[in-house]
């Protein structure tokens, strides 16, 4: 039995060494949480992958695995890729955080890039986009457009990234429409068209005429289209097939420049572990075309807001802002720091309901 263990250990070491041998082509791996055809989150990451292929041509080879559950299976998928000779692996969902760290420890020569997480190592970088900047623009349009003053929000998981989006959208809706009310449904999934459609229908039945979503499929768009007179926003991807109604605008994640950048760093041998959190300014977050369903002056205001955020003149979390319980958070003119935003686990004042704890 000991010999067996020894053999297994030696084989593993050999395998690792084999994986580390320099090849002529740089191998770039991607782990996706949904199918590449989800039309949202994973779709855009895959677009980034295709951009890498196009940019580098024959110098790189990309591989991907889609619909990888967050947990033990993710660890295996990453190990498989590393054994297969990947030089850099992008793991594109929050739930891959621990698996990424675990696998990275076993493959010190492979670079890992984890999206939306906060754990780093010498060979693990993290990256995310400031989606909340886009949410501010959505909130503005939503507040102006709602007639029932009820805005429905399909949350995925009550994690800081999603809570930031809810807060940002609410703050900017409230600014232009003091009577606005948000109701949030937690779907506990990133991608499940049936659940997302149910959530959208429930919100519409409760009187919401604007649906915001932090889930990846187009099912809420379809539900809104069926109901009529309900507006939505593309999430993660443009979802332009639902324009001009119900989809009136969108947040588009543009990962391509980042992916090209990081792969280039691997090729040059200059890759270092770092944390990237970019927004509208550097182009990681884009606002999809605002359609004619939105009145011209609202569209102009929304675009002005977008440009002010991009230019760094305005921060979506600028005081005075209180927490939901009424306690003070940001004083007049004060801007939220990244640390608080990264771990945000509270609603701002005015939001009803509780974050599931």
């Amino acid at each position, binding site marked *: 039995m000991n010999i067996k*263990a020894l053999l297994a250990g030696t084989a593993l070491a050999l395998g690792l060494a084999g994986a580390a041998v320099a090849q002529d082509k740089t191998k770039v791996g991607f782990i996706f949480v949904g199918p590449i055809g989800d039309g949202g989150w994973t779709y855009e990451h895959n677009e980034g992958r295709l951009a890498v292929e196009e940019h580098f041509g024959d110098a790189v080879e990309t591989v991907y*695995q889609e619909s990888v559950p967050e947990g*033990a299976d993710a660890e295996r998928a990453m*190990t498989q890729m590393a054994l297969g000779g990947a030089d850099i692996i992008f793991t594109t969902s929050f739930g891959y955080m621990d698996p990424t760290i675990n696998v990275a420890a076993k493959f010190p020569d492979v670079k890992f890039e984890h999206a939306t997480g906060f754990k780093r190592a010498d060979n693990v970088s993290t990256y995310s986009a400031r989606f909340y900047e886009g949410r501010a623009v959505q909130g503005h349009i939503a507040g102006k457009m709602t007639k029932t003053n009820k805005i429905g929000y399909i949350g995925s998981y*009550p994690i800081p990234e999603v809570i930031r989006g809810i807060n940002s959208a609410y703050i900017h809706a409230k600014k232009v429409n003091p009577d606005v009310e948000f109701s949030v449904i937690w779907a*506990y999934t990133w991608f499940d068209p049936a659940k997302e459609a149910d959530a959208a229908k429930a919100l519409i039945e409760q009187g919401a005429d604007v649906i915001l979503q932090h889930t990846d499929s187009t099912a809420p768009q379809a539900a809104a289209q069926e109901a009529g007179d309900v507006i939505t926003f593309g999430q993660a991807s443009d979802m332009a097939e639902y324009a001009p109604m119900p989809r009136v605008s969108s947040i588009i994640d543009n990962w391509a420049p980042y992916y090209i950048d990081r792969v280039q760093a691997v090729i040059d041998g200059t890759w270092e572990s770092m944390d990237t959190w970019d927004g509208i300014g550097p182009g990681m977050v884009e606002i999809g075309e605002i359609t004619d369903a939105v009145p011209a002056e609202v569209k102009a205001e929304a675009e002005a807001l977008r440009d002010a955020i991009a230019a760094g003149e305005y921060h979506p979390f600028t005081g005075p802002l209180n927490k939901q319980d009424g306690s003070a958070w940001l004083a007049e003119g004060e801007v939220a720091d990244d640390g608080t935003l990264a771990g945000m*686990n509270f609603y701002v004042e005015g939001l009803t309901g509780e974050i599931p*704890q």
Partner: protein
Amino acid sequence: MIRLEKRPTPSRFWTWSTPVLAVLLTMIAGGLMFAALGKNPFIAIKTIFYDPILGEFAFYYRGQLLVKAGPLILIAVGLAMGFRAGIWNIGAEGQYIIGAICGAAVGLAFYPAESWIIFPLMIVAGALGGLLWAMIPAILKVRFKTNEILVSLLLVYVAEQLLAAMALGPLRNPEASGFPGSRNLQQYPSAANTEIIPGTGMHWGVAAALIAVVFAYVLLSRHLTGFHIRLAGQSPRAARFGGVNPTALVVFCMGVSGALAGMAGMFEVSGPAGQISIDFNSGYGFTAIIVAFLGRLHPIGILMAGLLMALTYIGGEAAQATMQIPAAAIQAFQGMLLFFLLGLDVLSNYRFRLPREGVA
């Protein structure tokens, strides 16, 4: 016209050869599907069935086969006992979740104390959790004649909600700055389900699965309870005359399958998964139903079926990663396996009759 004639008893030959035939047919039909997708079918089939066992990186995949097959076998062995007696526990997924929650909760309650007693206590807690969750449909069935299929299935969704609540609330890692999910049990030595032989994938849950196979085999073939189970399944009327207590049988079968599913969840959460998270469960409880039938509800058969099922998962993932075969095609491939198996069952229970020539 070819006629089907029911066999007086299922054919032993076909009972054991249809799984092999089903695998071969799946390879052919799946190969055609892969070819239609523009992939080389031979390489695809080799990647799925050969590479994980004997390929270049088999040293890693073989261990993963055990990791994947362990919980499937452990759950399926328990389920098969009930299925044989005509007691349909469809909610193993829920019992698996509750077992994981209870096991992890006990472990986390001791954090950060170190003691050898913690892990055994977690195993007991996991088994108890699964057992109690299975007792709900069991008692409702014997007391109020409710349908255990529906109750156990619906309790899966209750368990999923409870899991989310636990990951966000009581079991959340207080040092994770607001992120959901418990502490990682793999990083807590006293509570970690480690590999018994490092590098082989052989963790305590796999050992438990093998022990369960042996026990189930002995119980079913050598013990009076096993006889009662088989009798109740084959002829409920005869069972009643034969002194089988149907109430006790329901409670026993549901309890055993629940306890084993709970243990599987506990081994998973303290081992490969590492932590309670919102979507910790990944369908083992449902896949185990397929494994139970694929293995003919026989412990040894389940052992082999579990390994085969694990192979289609591991190999399927490898085919995805190396050949870019879509995930949906792999699922369709697994679906074909079950489809052919059930379709071919007709051979075990019926025989073909050609009409005799010359008969008016």
